[in-house]
């Protein structure tokens, strides 16, 4: 199903943003907040894994029901998971489309990757000491 993905700040994202190697940060920024009816349509229960595909790739997140989002829209806290699929085009402003991306969402059996795994996939080397 096609959804509009909006990214933004949450308290939990802000509280863990200085500790990005923590499980709390990974959990919060890999959460895909969805309308309950959309979850029903996709056969999803809370915390089920979903594959979210954008124009630049795909990433696995966990679906969580939220009454803050409208049907057809999903909300993902700012972080490496949403940015994994956002396009870098800024339309001559310097600003990518962080709040207006169309994505395809489907259930999956895969587990969300860790922040370290996401970075290593792109050629980085995790540091955790």
């Amino acid at each position, binding site marked *: 199903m096609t959804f*509009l993905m*909006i*990214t*933004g*700040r*949450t*308290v939990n994202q*802000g*509280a*863990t943003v*200085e*500790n*990005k*190697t923590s499980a709390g940060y990974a959990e919060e*920024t890999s959460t895909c907040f969805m309308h309950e009816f959309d979850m029903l349509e996709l056969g999803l229960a809370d915390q089920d894994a979903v594959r979210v595909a954008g124009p*630049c*790739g795909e990433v696995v997140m966990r679906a969580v029901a939220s*009454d*803050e*989002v*409208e049907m057809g*829209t999903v*909300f993902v806290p*700012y*972080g*490496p998971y949403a*940015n*994994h*699929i*956002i*396009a*870098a*085009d*800024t*339309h*001559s*402003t*310097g*600003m*990518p*489309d*962080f*709040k*207006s991306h169309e994505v395809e969402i489907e259930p999956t059996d895969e587990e969300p990757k860790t*922040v*370290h795994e996401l*970075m*290593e996939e*792109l*050629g*980085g*080397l*995790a*540091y*955790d*000491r």
Partner: protein
Amino acid sequence: MIVKDVVCPFCGCLCDDIEVDVAENRVVAVTNACELGTKKLMGEKRMKNPILRDGDTWKDITYDEAIRYTVDMLTHAERPLLYGWSGTHGEAQCVGVHMAELVRGVIDNTSSVCHGPSILAIQEVGHPGCTLGVVKNRADLVIYWGANPIDAHPRHLSRYTRYADGFFLENAFRDRKVIVMDVRKTETANIADEFVQIKPGGDYAVLSALRAIVRGKEDIVPRTVAGVTREQLIRVVDLCKAAKFGAVYFGLGLTMTRGKYKNVRNAIELVSELNRHTKFTISAMRGHYNVYGSNEVNTWMTGYPFGIDFSRGIAFYNPGETTAVDILARKECDAALIVGSDPAAHFPRSCLKHLADIPVVQLDPYPNATTAFCNVQIPVAVTGIDAEGTAYRMDGVPIRTRKVLSTSYPSDEEVLSRIYREMQEAQAV
């Protein structure tokens, strides 16, 4: 020991009434700060010493070695990118601009992915703003547009708007109206007197409709605009016109969505229209505690607020061309110095692929997502915790942040000044 009147180093509110309990040179308790500020002030897991990537492992190195690596990297680069700057003090930002000029690099700050578009709008039509204190004491109407302060600036409502007592308001909670315009029914929307739910991407149309109604042209407004009924739009305009002093605060809901700076321009022009009837101001909800400072410092030193390119020998500015996301996506820079930010967590993936291919040095107290792409990371003191320095609040008021701990970490300014001095010496040889 209790340290009073500490300035919170998290968001643009720069709350200056924090009390920090320090025992054995550690922060053990924080009073008055929100959850975000408390977590930052009590932050742990700081990097102990500079690290160098050596193939598939990390090696501990000294500050001298780390500084020498950075000097070599910057002086040998053809087109270095110096990015970040919002999580550090103004004094360090000044050194950063000098460094960029010396190596003919590009210096950009995190506003290019937050309120950069707002600045483009302000450059077009100006900015009728005011300080937070003026809003607290005078505003009887506050509009949050595309902003969710309960999550992003948790004390904005209690210090300046919804729950703040004001000098000219007898009963602030009763006398001050709050309108929230957003695509999501957020926690902030739940405490509003009037919530206007806009269809995503519809902000520009709603702003234009409101401007038409303020001008007395409500007959030409369609029955609904981006999901908002004409009746509700008229009610919003009536509330605005009835206010003695209105304040609009806008967030990334306007700058990150389609239209970007044109949305902000339309919002500023709505405020201009309202100023024909009553007093109205508009201000941006700035995120990083000193992102406003990076715009100020860059502007007084170069004439431009972000995305400044020194490759021609003079300052050149063209957002979309000289901004970090674009430069990385085009694989244009051949080295990057990152200070006080984490682009690996907040930039699109294609930008990170290029960071993996070029030498990267980061100054940051904590390991973060960008650490993975670093060749060298240099841990520094945190401004507002173990270093002092100047930061600009979201309304443009410069505030001196305090130092509550004494650690052996050097400040950003100390490390950058040394790098700059050695770069000058290297160039003089």
